[in-house]
């Protein structure tokens, strides 16, 4: 009785593929061997520097050094490049570790099988096994790699930035180094007068905006849907198609067009107000009216979506509910109050909450319509209609306040996440209750 399993596992731990060779799985062994060889060739020169880079964020500032008699410019460390390439290397290393461990496990399992007298699988059989049993893993590999490097890595990077002092004017590479500062950024955001004033102002407006925007589009949608579906109204399909048009026009276009429609000087809206003998309104230039404008325009953009959803819900209401109500002699209004409204509210409640969370992050409407303007003097880099997200955008791209931006990003995440989790739990409990079936 050979102790195949431990021999194979130890061999594979020494160098990937050896255990597979020992188990006479030559092609598999060769592939694994090549993987480790490539990994070693990459990690030996890079891994140490990667860890050093992430931990220290660079030590040498760019500057001039005396070489002999002349001053020579010396390139310093670029903290941000060090951080990102360090992260990439560490992520790659994590992937390699997964490979390495499953390689040992595989050698161990095959060795165990051999002990019971089973002949190890050939390469063909292994391939078939993968296609059959490991199909979901195979299908998820490519998307997973993409998400890992294009979503997770960037998010980890940005979260880390919140704990550095990466901001203009004093800490912008390559001239200067960036350092870890712990929770200093969050402390500044909440305690420094200039920042906290802006933060509280923008935060309050974000919440007010999200509530009003959600409520108006939702009830607007219900109203329009009920109008279309009400008894006696003809051309239902035509109305629906017309009302879907705002949804069908790309927001990029419709919002830029709206910006011109509401133009204070030459825009047609003010022109029509003039025909009725009314005063022109400062739609986009006055802090209060700018807020009204974004909410109005958001209704135009958002009502069609709610309408479509609610039309769908309306068709799903069982007809026998109404018939039963008819038998009991209910009036139209009673039927509406007791059947239609509860049904709509009940089946769209989760969407309502998701729309609320979405409106907190509604970048397009604000950015394209007002760009956060009109400017507010006592705000740090923000205007009267700026939401947290648009402020984050401005801080990142226009003002290079990267650490503040990512601190705000984390706060937005916490708000949205708590709503979504609460919503998820609630809708779960709804499903289990089976109130409507």
């Amino acid at each position, binding site marked *: 009785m050979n102790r195949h399993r431990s021999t194979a596992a130890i061999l594979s731990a020494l160098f990937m593929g050896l255990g597979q060779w020992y188990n006479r799985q030559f092609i598999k062994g060769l592939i694994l061997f090549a993987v480790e060889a490539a990994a070693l060739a990459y990690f030996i020169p890079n891994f140490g520097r990667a860890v050093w880079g992430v931990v220290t964020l660079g030590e040498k500032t760019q500057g001039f050094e005396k070489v002999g008699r002349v001053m020579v410019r010396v390139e310093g460390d670029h903290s941000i490049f060090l951080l990102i390439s360090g992260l990439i290397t560490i992520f790659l290393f994590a992937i390699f570790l997964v490979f390495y461990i499953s390689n040992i496990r595989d050698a161990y399992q095959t060795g165990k099988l051999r002990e019971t007298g089973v002949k190890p699988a050939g390469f063909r059989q292994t391939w078939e096994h993968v296609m059959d049993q490991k199909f979901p893993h195979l299908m998820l590999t490519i998307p997973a790699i993409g998400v890992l490097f294009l979503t997770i890595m960037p998010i980890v990077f940005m979260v880390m930035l919140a704990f550095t002092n990466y901001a203009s004017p004093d800490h912008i590479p390559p001239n200067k180094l960036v350092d870890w500062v712990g929770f200093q950024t969050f402390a500044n955001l909440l305690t420094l007068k200039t920042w906290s004033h802006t933060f509280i102002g923008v935060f309050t407006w974000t919440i007010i905006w999200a509530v009003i925007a959600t409520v108006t589009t939702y009830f607007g949608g219900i109203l329009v849907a009920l109008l279309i579906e009400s008894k006696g109204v003809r051309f239902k399909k035509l109305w629906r198609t017309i009302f879907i048009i705002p949804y069908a026009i790309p927001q990029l276009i419709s919002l830029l*067009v709206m910006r011109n429609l509401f133009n204070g000087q030459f825009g*047609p809206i003010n022109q029509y107000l003039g025909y009725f003998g009314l005063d022109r309104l400062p739609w986009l230039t006055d802090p209060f009216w700018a807020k009204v404008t974004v909410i109005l325009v958001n209704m135009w953009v958002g009502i069609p979506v709610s309408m479509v959803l609610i039309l769908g819900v309306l068709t799903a209401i069982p007809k026998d509910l109404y018939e039963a109500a008819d038998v009991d002699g209910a009036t139209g209004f009673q039927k509406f109050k007791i059947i239609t409204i509860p049904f709509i509210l009940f089946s769209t409640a989760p969407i309502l909450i998701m729309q609320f969370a979405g409106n907190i992050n509604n970048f397009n409407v604000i950015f394209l319509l007002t760009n956060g303007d009109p400017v507010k003097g006592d705000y740090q880099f923000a205007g009267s209609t700026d939401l947290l997200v648009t402020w984050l955008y401005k801080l990142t791209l226009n003002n290079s306040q990267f650490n503040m931006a990512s601190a705000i990003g984390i706060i937005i995440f916490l708000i949205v996440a708590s709503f979504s989790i609460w919503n998820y739990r609630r809708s779960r409990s709804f499903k289990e209750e089976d109130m409507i079936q």
Partner: protein
Amino acid sequence: MKMGRKTANAVRLTFSYLILIAIAVCAVYPALWVLLSSLRPGTALFSPTLIPDQFTLAHYKELFTSPSFRYGNWYVNTLKIAMLTMIFSTILTTLSMYALSRFRFRGRKNILTTMLVLGMFPGFMSMIAIFIFLLQLNLLDTHTALVLVYSAGSVLGGFVVKGFYDTIPRSLDEAARIDGASHLQVFIKIMLPLSRPMLTYVALTSFTGAWVDFIFARLVLRSKENWTLAVGMWDLVSSYQNSNFTLFAAGAVLIAIPITLLFVFLQRFLVQGLMSGASKG
């Protein structure tokens, strides 16, 4: 009594129609206005009447002939990027969501939770990191980069697709498996034909996503001949909006038309997609 009811009904109906017409005017007016503006001679935003006295196609011609725009060029770029994104993200999303919906394997719950959590971060929080990442891969100012980022991002929004596959009875694929079909065969021969509405929904949303994105495209595409329509449009707005409004209008119409037509014609699928996303909460 009966007459009274009839008149009340008629009043109610007239009232309903009046409101419907008012909403219809609001819904259509901006589109109509920009369309008519694009056909108006001159460059001004201000116009005394909605319908211009005479029509001209000069602004459309200018978009394609003026040396400072490369509208034709941008149109081709955008079509290319949007098509490739559509193909890749549809394949990636359907395959991976099929796997997540149909198979029970270790870590499945974790993957779903991770997807949910990642979707809650504001998207462009990751812009800077992606920018530097692309810089290191030497992919800046290329269309490959855009297709790559859009397709990889689309997978995270795949919950709707997963929800759709959850509703298809398992007995279908089990029967095919017993007959000896491989997983890939089951997917291609049985699932794909059934998921036509969902495929249309995913393809349509990823196509439009790539068609109108200007935030990320502006960051990545540096040289003017590589721009997409949305980036060009953004540039047009920031530099010409007030001085040459009619040109902007013409550009806007050309960008909006393909998307709007697709949406109106594929309405049915869109509604289905929205609904199945909704019922999953």
